C-alpha cells in the first residue's frame, strides 16, 4: 500500500509534466512526451496489479467543502485505459503531425487533456469531479480548435464547448443540491450511506452526464469535435472524454431513483437509435465514426439505466479499443488522401475506394475493429454488447417497457450495416489513383496492430459468447458491491447474431464493388428524400441549436439596445435636464434676480443723477442753492409755527 501511495500521485501528475516538457521542447515534443506517458503507463499497470483496498485522500478545500480523490479498481482500470490510448495516440501523432509547426503546442494540450481526464477519473468528491469535468471540457476546446487559423475549426470548438457548458450548468446545480440537501458529497460515502437522491438532483446529474457523453439532445457537439486533428478525435471519442458521463452515471446510479433510471434507459436507447440512423448516409469518414460513437455511448447509458452497469463498463472498455483503432485507421487513410491530393477533401468517402491494396495494415485494423463494432462473435464488441442487450431484454420483461430493448436491437442491425458500408466503400473496389505509399513502420502500424489485436475476444474472456466471462468482472465489481450473475440468454444471443449478420449482408448487397449503388456512390449528392435528409443532417439537431442561438442572440442584442437606448438614454436625459434646469436658473438669476438688483441700482443711480444735476462745480451757485434752501426752511418754520 505504501508503494501505491507514492505512485498514484505520480500517475496523476505525469501527463501534466510530460505535456509541459513536450511543450517546451519544440523538436522532439511528441517523442519526449511519449516516454513520459510510457513510464506513467507502467506505473498505472502496477497500480492495477497491486490495488486491493480503495485508496482515499481528502483535504479541506473550503470550510464546508472537501476536496478528495479515491482510487478503487474501477477507476484504476480506466486510468490505465486513458494512459494506453493517450500513448498510442501520441505515437501515432509522431507521423501524423510531423509536418505541423505547432507540435509543441499539440503535445502540451494532449498532456493537459490526459491530466484532466485522469483527475476526473480519480475524483471522489463531487466538487473535485466538477473541477476536472470542466478542465476536460476546456482541454477538449483547446484540442478541437488546435488549427485555430481556420475559422471554421475554432467556431466548432466554441460550439462544442458551449453545448457542454449548458449541460455543465445543470451538473453544477446538481452538485450544489447534493450539498444543500445534506447528502454525502463523495462517491464512496454515497455508496456506503445508501441514500437516495431526490429526483430533481438526479435529473441534473443525468443532464450533465448526457452533455459530456453526447446523448440526445446534446450529441451535436461530438460531430463538431471532428474539426480537431484525427488522433485527437480518437482520444476524445474512444477512451476518454465522452465516457466521463458514463463513468459518472455508473458511480451515482445507486443513489438514483427508479424514474431517473428509466430516463437514463430511454435517453440512451433513443440516442443509440438516432445516431445509428444518422450514421447510415454520411459521406465524411469521420462523421460516420462520430455518429457511431454517439450510438455506442447510447448503449452504455442504456445499460446503466436498465441496471446492467457492469456490461456498460465492459462496453466502455472494449469500445475504447476498437473505436480508437477505427479512428486511428481513419486517420491513416486521411493522412494518405491528404498526401495524395491536397485539393480534394481528404475525409470524403466519395474520393476513396480500393485502399486495401495500398494500406494493408490499416485495412486489416479497420476491418477487425469495424467487425468488433458491428458485434460479430469472437470479437470483443460482441461480448460487451451482448451484456447490454441481455440487460435491456430482462429489463423489458420486468417492466413491460419494450421500447428500450427494441431500439437496442434495431441499433445492433443498423450498426452492422453502416460499418459494413464504410469498410466496403473505403477499402474495396477500384483504385482511382496509383500513388503508392508505404505505411510508416513503427509509429502508425504499431498502434493500429495493437488496437486491432486488443479487439479480439480472448483478451477479455475465454468464452467468446458469454459477457460474464470478462476477466475484469470479478476484479472490478467487488468494490462496487454488486457483481452481475447474468449469463447471456440464448434468444438474445441468436437474435443479435442474426441482426448483425443481416446488417452486414445488406451492406454487402448494396455496396459490394460491382453493385449499382456502390458505383453510383462516387457521384452521389446529399439525399433528397425525407428519411435520407433526416439521417444525413443528424436529425437536424444543428438546426435546433441554431434556432436557440438565434433566439439567444435576439435577447442579447435586445439587452444591448435596452442598455444603450433606454437606461443610458434615461441617465443622459437626467443629466441633460439637469443642465437645462441649470441654464433656466442661470437665466433667471442673471435676468430676474440680478435684473432686480440692477434695476434697483439703476433707479438709485437715476435719483442720484437727478440730484446731482442740482449740483454744480461753481461754488457760487452752490452757495446760492444753500441760501435758497435756508430761506425756504426758515419761511416754512415761520408760517407753520
Amino acid at each position, binding site marked *: 500500500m505504501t508503494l501505491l501511495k507514492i505512485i498514484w500521485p505520480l500517475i496523476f501528475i505525469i501527463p501534466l509534466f510530460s505535456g509541459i516538457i513536450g511543450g517546451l521542447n519544440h523538436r522532439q515534443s511528441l517523442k519526449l512526451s511519449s516516454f513520459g506517458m510510457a513510464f506513467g503507463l507502467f506505473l498505472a499497470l502496477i497500480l492495477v496489479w497491486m490495488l486491493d483496498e480503495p485508496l482515499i485522500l481528502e483535504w*479541506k*478545500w*473550503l*470550510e*464546508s*467543502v472537501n476536496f478528495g480523490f479515491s482510487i478503487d479498481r474501477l477507476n484504476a482500470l480506466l486510468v490505465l485505459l486513458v494512459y494506453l490510448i493517450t500513448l498510442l495516440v501520441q505515437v501515432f501523432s509522431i507521423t501524423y503531425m510531423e509536418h505541423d509547426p505547432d507540435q509543441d503546442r499539440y503535445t502540451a494540450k494532449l498532456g493537459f487533456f490526459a491530466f484532466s481526464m485522469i483527475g476526473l477519473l480519480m475524483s471522489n468528491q463531487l*466538487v473535485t469531479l*466538477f*473541477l*476536472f*469535468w*470542466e*478542465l476536460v471540457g*476546456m482541454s477538449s*476546446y*483547446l484540442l478541437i*480548435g488546435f488549427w*485555430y*487559423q*481556420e*475559422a471554421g475549426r*475554432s*467556431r466548432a*470548438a*466554441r460550439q462544442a*464547448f*458551449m453545448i457542454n*457548458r*449548458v449541460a*455543465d*450548468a445543470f451538473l*453544477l*446545480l446538481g452538485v*450544489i*443540491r447534493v*450539498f*444543500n440537501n445534506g447528502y454525502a458529497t463523495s462517491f464512496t460515502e454515497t455508496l456506503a450511506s445508501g441514500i437516495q437522491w431526490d429526483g430533481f438532483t438526479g435529473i441534473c446529474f443525468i443532464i450533465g452526464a448526457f452533455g459530456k457523453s453526447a446523448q440526445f439532445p446534446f450529441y451535436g457537439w461530438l460531430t463538431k469535435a471532428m474539426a480537431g486533428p484525427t488522433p485527437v478525435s480518437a482520444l476524445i471519442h474512444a477512451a476518454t472524454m465522452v465516457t466521463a458521463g458514463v463513468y459518472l452515471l455508473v458511480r451515482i446510479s445507486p443513489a438514483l431513483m427508479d424514474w431517473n433510471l428509466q430516463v437514463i434507459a430511454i435517453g440512451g436507447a433513443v440516442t443509440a437509435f438516432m445516431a445509428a440512423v444518422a450514421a447510415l448516409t454520411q459521406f465524411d469518414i469521420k462523421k460516420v465514426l462520430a455518429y457511431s460513437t454517439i450510438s455506442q455511448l447510447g448503449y452504455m447509458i442504456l445499460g446503466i439505466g436498465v441496471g446492467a452497469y457492469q456490461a456498460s463498463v465492459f462496453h466502455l472498455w472494449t469500445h475504447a479499443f476498437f473505436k480508437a483503432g477505427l479512428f486511428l485507421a481513419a486517420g491513416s487513410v486521411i493522412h494518405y488522401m491528404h498526401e495524395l491530393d491536397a485539393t480534394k477533401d481528404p475525409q470524403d468517402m466519395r474520393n476513396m475506394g480500393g485502399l486495401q491494396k495500398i494500406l494493408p495494415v490499416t485495412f486489416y485494423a479497420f476491418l477487425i475493429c469495424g467487425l468488433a463494432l458491428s458485434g460479430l462473435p469472437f470479437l470483443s464488441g460482441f461480448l460487451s454488447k451482448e451484456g447490454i442487450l441481455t440487460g435491456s431484454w430482462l429489463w423489458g420483461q420486468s417492466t413491460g417497457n419494450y421500447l428500450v430493448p427494441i431500439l437496442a436491437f434495431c441499433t445492433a442491425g443498423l450498426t452492422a450495416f453502416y460499418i459494413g458500408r464504410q469498410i466496403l466503400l473505403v477499402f474495396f473496389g477500384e483504385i482511382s489513383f496509383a500513388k503508392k505509399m508505404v505505411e510508416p513502420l513503427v509509429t502508425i502500424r504499431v498502434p493500429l496492430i495493437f488496437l486491432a489485436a486488443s479487439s479480439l475476444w480472448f483478451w477479455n474472456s475465454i468464452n467468446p459468447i458469454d459477457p460474464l466471462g470478462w476477466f475484469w468482472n470479478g476484479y472490478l465489481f467487488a468494490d462496487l458491491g454488486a457483481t452481475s450473475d447474468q449469463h447471456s440468454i440464448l434468444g438474445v444471443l441468436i437474435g443479435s447474431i442474426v441482426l448483425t449478420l443481416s446488417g452486414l449482408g445488406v451492406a454487402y448487397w448494396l455496396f459490394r464493388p460491382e453493385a449499382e449503388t456502390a458505383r453510383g456512390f462516387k457521384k452521389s449528392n446529399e439525399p433528397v428524400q425525407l428519411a435520407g435528409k433526416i439521417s444525413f443532417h443528424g436529425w437536424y439537431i444543428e438546426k435546433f441549436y441554431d434556432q436557440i442561438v438565434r433566439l*439567444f442572440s435576439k*435577447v*442579447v*442584442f435586445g*439587452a*444591448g*439596445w*435596452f*442598455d444603450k437606448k433606454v*437606461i*443610458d438614454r434615461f*441617465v443622459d436625459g437626467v*443629466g441633460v435636464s439637469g443642465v437645462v434646469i441649470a441654464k433656466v436658473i442661470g437665466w433667471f438669476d442673471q435676468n430676474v434676480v440680478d435684473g432686480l438688483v440692477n434695476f434697483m441700482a439703476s433707479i438709485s443711480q437715476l435719483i442720484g443723477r437727478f440730484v446731482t444735476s442740482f449740483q454744480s462745480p461753481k461754488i457760487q451757485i452752490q452757495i446760492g442753492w444753500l441760501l435758497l434752501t435756508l430761506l425756504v426752511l426758515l419761511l416754512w418754520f415761520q408760517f407753520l409755527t
Partner: protein
Amino acid sequence: MTDSLLTLIIFFPLLVTAVVLFLPNGKDLLIKEIALGATGVQLVLSVILFFSYDASLQPENWSNAFQFVERAKWISLYLGDYGWLQIDYFVGIDGISLLMICLSTFLLFVGVIASWNLSKNVKGYFILYLILSTSVVGCFAALDFFLFYVFFEFMLLPMFFLIGIWGGPRRGYASIKFFIYTLVGSLFILAVMIGLYLSVEDTSLADQTQEVVHSFSLVNMMDGGYITDGILTPGNATEFLGMNIRWIAFILLMVGFAIKLPAVPVHTWLPDAHVEAPTAISVLLAGLLLKIGGYGFFRIAYGIFPDAAVSLTYPIAIFGMISIVYGGLTAMAQNDLKRMIAYSSVSHMGFILLGLASFNVQGAGGALFQMVSHGFISGALFILAGVIYDRTGDRGIANFSGLAKAMPVFTGFVVVFFFASLGLPGLSGFVGEFLVFLGALGSDYLPKWIGIVSISGIVISAAYYLWALQRMFFGQFWTREKVWEQTMYDLTARELLLLIPLAILVVLLGIAPNVILGPVNNSIEFFVNQCFEQSQLYLAQ
C-alpha cells in the same frame, strides 16, 4: 510596530506625496520609482498585516471583533441640547477588511507598473495616484462613519482627474458621469449617516460627561447603541412613503453602494468610465473602487441594518440575479473589448448582491471571495485590453482577427484570464460563484428559482468570452489597418511582470481558496451570526 501599522499603511503614500510635491517637474523616472517604492512599502506592510492577523479570534460582539484598532479623538463639539458631537480617528480591521486591504495594496502596486510608460504630466498623475491609495485603504480600515465618508469622498476627486485628464477621447463626458453618479450615491449615504448619528450614543464616553454623546462610531452603530427615541432606533414606528424609516435608510444605503458596485440599473457610468480611463486606472476602478460598494454592503448596510436586510432579501437577490444575467447579455452585445470586460464586471458584481441576500455563511463568504478574485481577474483583463490599445490605439473586437498567430504568449494569457472570468474550476473565478450558488440555493430566505436562473450566468459568460476569443484571437491574422500589423509584437517584459503574478494568484486561489478564506472564516461566520441575531432582536422591538 503593530500598534500603528494600520495608520502607517493608510498614510504612507500621503507622506510620500509630500515629497513628490517638492520634486521638480522633469524628474519623471524618479517620481515613478518613488511611487513604486511607496506602494511597494504599502504592499509589504499589508502582507505583514495579513500574517500578524489573529485568525483564531472569536468575537462576541462587534466591539471586540476588530484587530489593530487605533482610536484618537478628532473632533469634539458641545452642542447644548443635542449633547456632544464626537468624531474619532478610529480604524481597525476584521477579516473582511483585511482581505480588501491586501487586495488594494497589491493592485495599487500593480497599477504603478501598469502606468510606467506614462509621459503626460507624470508628477500630477502620481500625486493623485498616491492620494487615491491612501483614501482607498483608509476607506477599508475606517471604523468611524464620518472618517469612512471622508475617505469615500476623497477617493472621488483623484479619480475624477485621473480619468478626466489622462483618459481617452470622451474623457470629459465619462469623468463627469462617473463623478455625478457617485456623488448622488454618496448623498444618500450622507443622509443615512446623519440620521444614524442622531440615533446612537456612545455610552462608553457618556459616563465622563453626563451628557448624551452622539458618535459616528460604526462599531457602536453595529452593536446597537441606540438612544431611546432616535429617528433610526429599532422599534421607531415612523413611516415614510408607507415604509418603516429604518427600511428607507437601508434602501438608501443599498442604492448608494449599488451605484458604486455597480448593480443594474445604476451601472451605466461604469462602461464609459472604463473605456475612457487609462489602463492602470481601469485596473483600480474595477479592482478596488467597485469593491468599496461591496464592502459598504457588508460593513454598513448589513452591519447596521440587519433587520431591514433580512426582510428585503428577496428584492436584493432579484437585483443580483438581474445584474448577473442582464450584465452578461449586454456584455455579449458590445463591440469594444474593454466595454465587454466592463459589462462582465457588472455581471460578476451581481454575485455579491446574490451572495449577501442569501444571508448565510456560504453566500457571504462567496461574495467576499468574489470581490477578491474579481479584483485580480478584472485587473488582468483590463491590462490585457490595454496591451492591444497601447499597440494600435484601438480595441474594436471586429477590427482584429487571428491575433494568436502574431502574439501567442499574449493569447495564452488571454485564454487563462478569460477562462478564469467565465468561472472555470481550478481558477479563482469559480470559487466565489460556487459559494454564492451554494448560499443562494441553500438559503432559508430565497426561493430556489432565483439561484437557478442565476446559474445560467455561467453559460452566458462562457458565450461572450469564447465568442470574443474566436473573433479576435483565432482565424487568419488580420487587422483593420495595415500599419497595425507591424505593431502587434508580443508581450514585453514589463507586461509579463504585470501578468505573471496575477496569473499565479488566480491559479493559487482557484486550487487552494482556503489560503485566504481560512484566516477570515471566523469573521464571516461572526458577521452572519451577528446579523441574524441582531435582526431578530431589532425586529422584536
